[in-house]
C-alpha cells in the first residue's frame, strides 16, 4: 500500500515538475514588429479605424507590465489600445502587454490570482473588489500616488472612496457611469407628448408611460426589469437606502424601500411597464432600440449600442425623474488595481497613472462610453455639446450613490432581484417580499 502511494506521489511530483519546466513566456530581447489596429475616436462619437504599424525594440532593461481588463465591446478595446500606444511612445522603457479577457472576467481573474499568474494591472469592479483587498492580494497605492503627486482630491470623492479599504486606497477609478432616462423621441411625438426634462417627477413618468403603452401590441411605456442595478434608484428617490451607513444592516424592509417596490411593481401591474422577458428579450436596451419600450433607465453604455445596432432610433437622455424623497441615482465604476505580486509596482503605477490622467480621461469622455473620474473635467466643452452624456455625468451629482452594498453585496443583489421577481411572478405581497429579502440579507450578514 505504502509503496504504491510512494510510487504515485513520485509520479505526481514528476508530472507537476514537468509542467513547471514547460517554457514560460519569458520576455527575451528580440526585435518584434507589432501591428496594432487603433481606432481614434473623435468628438462626433464616430470611431475611425487607423492602421498603425509600430516597430518596438525590446531591450533587456525594458520593464514588462501585464495589463488585463474585460472587453465589453471592440470599440472600447480599441480605445484602451490607443491610450496604451500613446503610453508606449512616451515611456519607451516600459512594455505594456495588454491581455484582454473575454467571457467571465472575474472568474478568470480569480483563477489567475490563485495560480499566482495574475497580470500586474487589472480592472476591478466596484462591486467585488473588496474581496481582493480583504484577501490581501492588492498593492496599496497611497505611497505610489504620493510619489507622482496624485491626490485623492483629484477624483470625484464618491468614486475614490469606493476604492478605499480600511483607510488605504487600492484602486484608481478609471471612469464611471450613472443611469439616465432614455426616451424614444418618435414614440413621444406619435403620442403627442412633450419630451421629458431633468425636472420630471414620478407623476410625470407614470402619466407618460400610460400614454405610451399599447399592451395589445406589446408596446410599453417603461422598462421595469427585476434588476438590482435599476431598482435601488427608486428606493433612493423615495428617501430610502439599501444598506445602512456602515453596511452592517439592510434597509430593504424600510417603508421607503417597500413604497419604492410598490411603485415599481405597480407600473407592470397597470400594464404601463414591462419586464424584458415579458417581451421575449434578455435586456431592455434591445427593446428600447426596437421601440417596444418607450423609456428605460440605462447608462452611457446604451449610447454606443444604439449607435451600432439601432442607428435609426431617435432618442434623448435626461436625469431620472425625482420621487417623493428627491433625486436618486446609481454610480457604476471600475478602477485599475495593481497586484501585490507585481515585480515592478513602480512601472505598473506609471501605467495606471497615465491611464487615469486628465488627457487620457478626456479621450475616454469624448468616446461617449463612460465619464471621467477626475473632478477637473466637470466643465469640459464636450459635456456642453453632448446633452445625452451630460445628463449621465450630471446624474452623479444628484442623489447618486455607488453601486456597492458591502461585504455581502452579491446576496443583497440576489435578494433584491428576487424580491421584485416574486412580486411579479408569484404575486407575493410587496411588503412580505421585501421583508423576506431583508431577512435573507441579515442572515448572510450574520454568516459572514
Amino acid at each position, binding site marked *: 500500500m505504502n509503496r504504491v502511494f510512494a510510487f504515485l506521489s513520485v*509520479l505526481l511530483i514528476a508530472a507537476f515538475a514537468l509542467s513547471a519546466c514547460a517554457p514560460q513566456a519569458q520576455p527575451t530581447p528580440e526585435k518584434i514588429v507589432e501591428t496594432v489596429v487603433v481606432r481614434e475616436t473623435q468628438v462626433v462619437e464616430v470611431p475611425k479605424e487607423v492602421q498603425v504599424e509600430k516597430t518596438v525594440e525590446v531591450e533587456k532593461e525594458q520593464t514588462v507590465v501585464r495589463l488585463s481588463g474585460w472587453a465589453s465591446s471592440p470599440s472600447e478595446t480599441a480605445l484602451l489600445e490607443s491610450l496604451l500606444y500613446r503610453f508606449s511612445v512616451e515611456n519607451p522603457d516600459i512594455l505594456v502587454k495588454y491581455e484582454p479577457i473575454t467571457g467571465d472576467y472575474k472568474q478568470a481573474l480569480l483563477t489567475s490570482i490563485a495560480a499566482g499568474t495574475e497580470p500586474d494591472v487589472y480592472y476591478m469592479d466596484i462591486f467585488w473588489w473588496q474581496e481582493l483587498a480583504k484577501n490581501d492580494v492588492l498593492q496599496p497605492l497611497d505611497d505610489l500616488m504620493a510619489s507622482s503627486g496624485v491626490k485623492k482630491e483629484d477624483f470625484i470623492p464618491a468614486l475614490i472612496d469606493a476604492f478605499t479599504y480600511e483607510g488605504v486606497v487600492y484602486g484608481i477609478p478609471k471612469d464611471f457611469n450613472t443611469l439616465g432616462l432614455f426616451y424614444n423621441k418618435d414614440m413621444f411625438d406619435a403620442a403627442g407628448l412633450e419630451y421629458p426634462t431633468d425636472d420630471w417627477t414620478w407623476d410625470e413618468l407614470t402619466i407618460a408611460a400610460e400614454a405610451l403603452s399599447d399592451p395589445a401590441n406589446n408596446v410599453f411605456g417603461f422598462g421595469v426589469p427585476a434588476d438590482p442595478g435599476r431598482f435601488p434608484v427608486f428606493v433612493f428617490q423615495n428617501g430610502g437606502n439599501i444598506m445602512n451607513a456602515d453596511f452592517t444592516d439592510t434597509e430593504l424592509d424600510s417603508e421607503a424601500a417597500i413604497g419604492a417596490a410598490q411603485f415599481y411593481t405597480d407600473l407592470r401591474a397597470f400594464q404601463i411597464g414591462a419586464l424584458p422577458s415579458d*417581451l421575449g428579450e434578455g435586456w431592455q436596451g434591445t427593446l428600447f432600440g426596437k421601440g417596444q419600450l418607450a423609456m428605460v433607465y440605462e447608462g452611457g453604455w446604451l449610447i454606443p449600442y444604439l449607435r451600432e445596432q439601432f442607428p435609426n432610433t431617435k432618442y434623448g437622455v435626461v436625469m431620472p425623474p425625482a420621487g417623493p424623497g428627491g433625486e436618486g441615482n446609481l454610480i457604476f465604476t471600475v478602477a485599475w488595481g495593481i497586484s501585490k505580486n507585481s515585480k515592478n509596482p513602480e512601472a505598473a503605477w506609471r501605467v495606471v497613472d497615465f491611464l487615469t490622467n486628465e488627457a487620457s480621461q478626456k479621450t475616454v469622455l469624448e468616446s461617449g462610453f463612460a465619464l471621467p473620474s477626475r473632478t477637473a473635467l466637470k466643465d469640459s466643452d464636450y459635456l456642453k455639446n453632448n446633452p445625452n452624456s451630460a445628463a449621465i455625468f450630471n446624474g452623479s451629482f444628484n442623489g447618486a450613490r455607488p453601486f456597492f452594498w458591502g461585504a455581502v453585496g452579491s446576496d443583497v443583489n440576489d435578494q433584491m432581484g428576487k424580491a421584485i421577481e416574486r412580486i411579479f411572478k408569484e404575486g407575493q405581497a410587496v411588503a412580505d417580499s421585501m421583508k423576506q429579502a431583508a431577512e435573507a440579507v441579515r442572515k448572510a450578514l450574520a454568516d459572514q
Partner: protein
Amino acid sequence: MATRLNRAKWNEAAMGYLFTLPWLFIFFTFIVFSIGYAFYLSFTKYNLLSPPEVWGLEGYRRVLSDELFMTKALPNTFKYTLIVVPLQTFISLVLAFAMDQKLRLRRVFRTIFYLPSVTSSVVISLIFVWLFAPQGVINQIFRLSVNWLDNVNTAFYVIMGMNIFTTSGTLMLIFLSGLQDIPTSLYEAAEIDGADKMQSFLYVTIPMLRPVIFFVVTVGVIGCFQVFDQIFVMTAGGPLDSTTTLTYLIYKWAFRDTTIKMGQAAAAAVILSLIILGVTLLQRRVIEGSGSSTA
C-alpha cells in the same frame, strides 16, 4: 533458480504497472486524490484567493441552513428525479415492448428513437429554448402565449419533459437488448406449465428484466441528481430559483457568486454524493428485495 523466478516475477510486476500506468496516473490524480481533497475542502473556508482555512462542520451547517439549498435546490432535485426517472423508465419500457413485437420498419424506428440521444444536451437545450420561446413554435402550434421558461409553474416541467425526450431512446435500446436476451425456452416452459400471455409477462419477462430495470433506474437516478447542462442553458436556475438543482447550486457557489464559496460548495457536493450513494444502495435493496419475495 529462485533468483531467476523472482526476477521473472519482478519483470511481470513491472509490466503490470507499465500497462496500468496511464490509467493509474489519471485515477490517482483525478479520482482518489480529488475525492480526498474534496472531503478536506468541505471542512474548510476557501475562496481561491487565500489558502483553505479549516473550520470543521461550519460549511455543512451553512449548507444545511441555507434557504436556497433547503427550500429550492434539494426539493427541486428530488422532484426532478421522482418525475423524470419513473416516466423515462416507463416510456422506454413500453417502447422496447413495442419494438420487440417484430413489427415492420423496426430498424427505421430504432434509428429515429435514438436521434434525440445523439444530440448533445446543450444543443437540444438551445433548440428547446427556441421552441418554447414566447413567440416560439410550440406557442404557435397550440395558439398559446405562455412564457414557458420564464414562468415558475412551467419552466421546470419543460426541462423535465426535454430530459425524458432525450434519454428514452437510449434506455429503450437497453431494455430491448434485455428483452432479447431472455431465452425463449423460458417462455416455452411457461407455456407448458399453462401460463397465459399475461402470466408469462408477469412471471417471466418482468423478473428476467429486473437487473436491467435496476440498471436503467440507477443510471437515471444518478443522472437526474446531477442534472446541470440543461439547467445552465435553459434557465440558469431561474425563474425565482424554481429550476435550481443541487449541481447547479454547487456550480453557482463555487464559480459564480461574487463571494466565492468553494468550501461550502465542496460540502454540498459531498452531501449530494452521499445522497446519490444512499439512494442507489436503497434502490438495489428494494429491487432485489422485491425479487426474492416473488420468486
